[in-house]
């Protein structure tokens, strides 16, 4: 259950729209069901009142949309940022990807977003409605007469279970209370894989990456992937490729994708959220984050604007690439 309500957000937004502070609003628009929510640009109070939603399925991170939308909108655009979104917001600012002056950022608290796949695992298919009910979600399906009560904690998306921060690191206005950076267990799964033998790890990733259909959703949704032209779309790069022709190309794409955002990835988890094949892509990014923290000191991309990403920085005392493997006996 989210602490802030949809009505509060609509009220605030309508006020800012009508007094001319902002001329457009990046928000969540209702779908056919209660969970298929589409990011949308709202321009009128009527539209907002009718279609704006805020519930446990508003996972989409709007930061990247600012790159395109700030160029399209006259005046300021209001954007709602959950705590994790604020990190992406700062990272994009660090990289000068949009004009801060054109944005009115409203921080909103987040109690964690639900994963519809997890809901379906518990209550089954044929969902006709989902309502928040205290700590629970009340889910009605076609196949059960009585709605099922599911604890929101049990269906929380992986990235929210391992939430790294409830603190907003950027906003013009904050609604509700700010939270704190959280000690999370987000690297546990990476550590579990590290503890495996190389053969086991290879088998694990072979199985995961072989499902990739190269739809590019992970790249296109990623707030750190904002190149005007991606190397994988450029015919002149000689790696332009639309299909995972074989296991090599699957790996190449995902290694390069993760490497290119290494040090800039805020761990927002959009890549795994959007993957139609449920590949745990965030683990690749987290591996880089974990390594960077261990090799070069703790670093959280997007925690502050203007910080220098670790892979475009150095000290004369850095460890040697060969020493990476000597530090522990994780491969022993």
């Amino acid at each position, binding site marked *: 259950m989210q602490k802030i309500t949809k009505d509060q957000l609509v009220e605030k937004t309508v006020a800012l729209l009508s007094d001319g502070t902002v001329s457009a609003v990046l928000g969540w628009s209702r779908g056919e069901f209660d969970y298929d929510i589409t990011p949308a640009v709202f321009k009128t109070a009527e539209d907002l009142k009718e279609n704006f939603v805020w519930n446990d399925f508003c996972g989409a991170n709007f930061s990247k949309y600012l790159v395109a939308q700030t160029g399209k909108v006259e005046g300021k655009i209001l954007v709602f940022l959950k705590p994790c979104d604020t990190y992406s917001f700062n990272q994009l600012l660090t990289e000068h990807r949009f004009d801060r002056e054109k944005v009115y950022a409203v921080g909103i608290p987040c109690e964690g977003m639900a994963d519809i796949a997890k809901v379906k695992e518990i209550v089954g298919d044929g969902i006709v409605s989902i309502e928040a009910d205290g700590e629970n979600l009340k889910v009605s399906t076609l196949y059960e007469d009585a709605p099922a009560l599911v604890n929101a904690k049990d269906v929380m998306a992986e990235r929210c279970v391992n939430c790294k921060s409830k603190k907003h690191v950027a906003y013009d206005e904050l609604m509700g209370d700010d939270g704190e950076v959280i000690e999370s267990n987000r690297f546990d799964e*990476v550590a579990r*894989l*590290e503890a495996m033998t*190389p*053969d*086991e*790890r*290879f*088998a*694990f*990733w*072979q199985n995961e990456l072989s499902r990739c259909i190269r739809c590019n959703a992970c790249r296109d949704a990623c707030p750190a992937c904002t190149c005007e032209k991606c*190397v994988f779309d450029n015919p002149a790069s000689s*790696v332009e490729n639309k299909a995972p*022709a*074989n296991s*090599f*190309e699957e*790996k*190449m794409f995902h*290694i*390069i994708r*993760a*490497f290119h955002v*290494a040090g800039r990835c805020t761990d927002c988890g959009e890549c795994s959220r959007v993957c139609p094949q449920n590949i745990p892509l965030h683990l*690749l990014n987290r*591996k*880089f984050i974990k*390594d*960077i923290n261990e*090799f*070069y000191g703790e670093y959280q991309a997007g925690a502050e604007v203007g910080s220098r990403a*670790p*892979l*475009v*920085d*150095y*000290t*004369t005392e*850095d*460890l*040697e*690439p*060969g*020493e*990476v*493997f000597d530090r522990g006996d994780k*491969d022993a």
Partner: protein
Amino acid sequence: MQVKEYKPLIVAFCCNWCSYAGADLAGNNRLSYPADVKIIRVPCSCRVNPMFILRAFQRGADGVIICGCHPGDCHYTSGNYYTRRRMAALFSMLDFLGIEKERTRVEWVSAAEGAKFAATMNEFAETVASLGENKRLEDLRCKR
């Protein structure tokens, strides 16, 4: 059928200012290192994009080594420091994906270190040979 002796194909990216000259010196001094080490000259070790490494494996390399100036001696002041960070991260990732970590390496070889160059290549080729053919980052289309 005759069984061909397995010789690993090694791709060595050598920086123009130190390691390439080091390789040159190794040659001038008649120091031997495996003929299957293919040297690609790059302006600086930090010119090596992760894609280069993956592409080398795709095209049949069994091991990839990057050689640059010793830290502090970069012709461009700091290029090799960036190499050091990037490759540390990349190699760790390759290892994370289960690709044998012994197949990738960074070595600092100065223009005066012909002997080190030859020794490094010999030792690296031996290590890679003991692993056998690169199977985990191969592109079958290129193997026919």
